[in-house]
């Protein structure tokens, strides 16, 4: 018998701190699998955000740097401009990327910064205990939208992928989900393509991953997958939002 599935080498052999059933772990593994398959662990430099994935610097075997809340694209820009031949990526949540770091995200895309961003959208602030995120859905109950998010007073959720697809500098933007095996496999393909986009020097790449937060959604891990499928995917349609990678 041959081993057909094991922990990827680029993922550190440690216990991830995430809650049971949190899909951060799946996405961490997918990133590591892609680093392995493209053979780029040795030239990769990752940037960890503030949020649930704040400890991400301990989870990948490549060089890692932390960033202040929302500033990961700026930090990644600094690293990439020093080492244009290395592979620089950030891993950010929705509060980090789509609220406090919106300016850094949009401008990195507009500059066509040749970096890769893995964007976890779970429609809530996880680390601080379940507050409304920029991506929380209308009607979604959180600690800071206890009566359900009311767009009249609390605004509408932001579709970052669609917004970033409007920028000329973005080369590849796709939204994926990790709610089932098929979608996890698609997510990996998208992440691989995003890194390949950077390796080919094509410019800014971002993969938005619809992800679960069972703890703060108040659901079991399995219920959370269903909630994602039934509520998030209709509001955040999956698919490629921008692809300039085939252009010369």
């Amino acid at each position: 018998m041959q081993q057909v599935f094991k922990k990827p080498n680029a993922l550190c052999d440690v216990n991830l701190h995430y809650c049971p059933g949190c899909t951060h772990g799946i996405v961490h593994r997918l990133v590591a699998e892609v680093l392995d398959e493209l053979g780029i662990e040795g030239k990769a430099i990752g940037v960890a955000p503030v949020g649930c994935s704040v400890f991400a610097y301990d989870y990948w075997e490549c060089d890692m740097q932390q960033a202040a809340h929302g500033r990961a694209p700026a930090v990644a820009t600094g690293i990439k401009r020093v080492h244009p031949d290395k592979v620089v990526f950030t891993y950010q949540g929705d509060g980090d990327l789509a609220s406090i770091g919106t300016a850094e995200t949009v401008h990195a895309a507009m500059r066509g910064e040749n970096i890769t961003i893995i964007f976890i959208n779970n429609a809530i602030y996880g680390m601080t205990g379940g507050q409304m995120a920029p991506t929380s859905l209308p009607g979604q109950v959180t600690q800071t939208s206890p009566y359900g998010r009311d767009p009249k007073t609390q605004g509408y959720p932001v579709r970052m992928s669609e917004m970033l697809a409007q920028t000329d500098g973005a080369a590849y933007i796709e939204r994926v989900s990790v709610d089932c095996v098929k979608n996890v496999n698609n997510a990996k393909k998208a992440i691989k393509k995003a890194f390949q986009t950077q390796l080919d020097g094509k410019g800014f790449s971002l993969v938005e991953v619809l992800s679960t937060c069972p703890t703060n959604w108040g659901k079991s891990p399995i219920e959370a997958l269903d909630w994602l499928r039934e509520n998030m995917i209709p509001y955040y349609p999956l698919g490629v939002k921008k692809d300039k990678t085939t252009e010369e």
Partner: protein
Amino acid sequence: MAEKVLVKGNEALAEAAILSGCRHYFGYPITPQTEIAAYMAKRMPKVGGVFLQAESELAAANMVFGAAGAGARALTSSSSPGISLKAEALSYIAGCDLPCVVVNIVRAGPGLGGIQPAQSDYYQATKGHGHGDYQMIVLAPSSVQEIIHLTADAFDLADLYRMPVMIMGDGMLGQMMEPVEFDLGERRKLPEKDWATTGTDMKRKHNIINSLIMNPDDLEACVRARYERYEQIKATEARAEEYMITAYGTTARIVKNAIVELRKKGIKVGLVRPITLWPFPEATYKKYADKVSAILSVEMSMGQMVDDVRLAVNDKVPVHFYGRTGGNIPYPDEIIKAMEEIAGGDK
């Protein structure tokens, strides 16, 4: 001997940074430091460097954080309100023990304030910028020539002690032209940056640049180690000239004129000019505390450095203050009058 050229303070600083091996500049326009960015935009591409105009001061400083972590000599510059925004990254840079140089060409505050020369950011520079227990080395040039030498020193000190170094001037110093030589002199030997995120190349364990330390004992030990390094810096790097009115930067130049006149009037007075604001040259003040009968601190602020002077002399001698703010520059006559009043009161 290098050739003497006539050059503006801000541009001298930018060129000195390039001569010091800085190839990464990240900035955002703000008066009165914008010449630094404009000069870098022109020069960096010619020397194979990077000039990047960021979307905000926040982003610019965090790009410096990234570049510094990646092992480069990185520079950003701004003026007072912009430095408030850069404070976030400075705290992270200090917390991650990274070297970088940040320039504050101070304008009058608070708020949007004005764009005239001021020294009202002394507290911010020496006592608090970002959050947490940390310090920056703060250098205060008072001539364009000194800007060149202190810029080279700033990069060396940053690399040697792995911490952010600020060069603090004001609009007058940044905008004035003086004849200078671009000769950096002998430089120190500096350690290798084996901690930088350069990619493991699969040849070493991964480098992690991080300031998040969840265990209180570990964090305390880390901060204490940093403060031991600060003590070493205080003992070896503090510099000052030795006289009796005390002032730094642009103000010190005006004080020198006042001193010439005061001496003509028979008042024995000299200048103590801190070149490093942090570490503050306490020893110099202590040395004179028994020898002078009064100290006058002259600043373009409502009195900030004066607190450090008082702490340094520890009530052994009265410390007076004279200052202008809002972008007003003190005239020599005002300083002479203030000193005469003190000298008269002593008689």
